[in-house]
């Protein structure tokens, strides 16, 4: 006999309903709002090139925009910091010394999956001369 899934009604549905309600509220607000006349990009001049100029504060682009050189430097430092932070978090500390994640080539995971029975014979096979 097949069973069909049932919707359990209760207070645990409230967070999901809150998200849907927020969508309804914003959608009504957006659809009722009026915006000015659209300007649009100028037909001549490259948008991509203008983005490139705006990134380095060069006032040569065909499309108007602000300079982003400081934001460019700040984001470079933030990416550097994030890279260092992620490496620090992913490091594994074992017996006082820091060991990189899976630096053993996944041997530990393999031993755990095979209960250490095959790992010895595998190591012998790999180590032999062919």
């Amino acid at each position: 006999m097949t069973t069909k899934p049932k919707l359990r009604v209760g207070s645990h549905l409230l967070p999901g309903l809150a998200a849907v309600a927020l969508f309804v509220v914003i959608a009504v607000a957006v659809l009722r709002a009026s915006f000015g006349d659209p300007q649009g990009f100028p037909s001549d001049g490259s948008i991509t090139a203008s983005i490139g100029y705006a990134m380095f504060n060069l006032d040569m682009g065909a499309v108007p925009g602000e300079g982003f050189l400081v934001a460019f430097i700040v984001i470079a430092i933030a990416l550097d910091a994030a890279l260092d932070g992620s490496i620090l978090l992913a490091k594994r500390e074992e017996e006082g010394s820091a060991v990189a994640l899976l630096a053993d080539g996944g041997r530990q995971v393999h031993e755990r999956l095979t209960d250490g029975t095959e790992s010895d014979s595998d190591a012998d096979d790999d180590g032999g001369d062919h």
Partner: protein
Amino acid sequence: MVPVQWYLLLATAVFCIGLFGILTRKNALLFLMSVELMLNAANINLVAFSAYWGNITGQTFSLFTMALAAAEVAVGIGIILVLYRNFDDVDVTLAKGMRW
């Protein structure tokens, strides 16, 4: 030109899908994906109004937002790795204290 209201409606939908995911899920990876959805909803708004007003600032800023999202994911996945190592699970409701 597509009216800007439709872009805003799309961004609202994407944002609320992300919010829904954060409020209803327990998996840390799904949390990360939901945060990405919310960030990208903001990007849709930036690009839509950039095209609307004929100004390049919104599009340039959305590029920086994307770079920031990449940094956030790098740190987020590092945190998820630590979470898995300490709890053998990626359920965000398991980690209740600042120390264990």
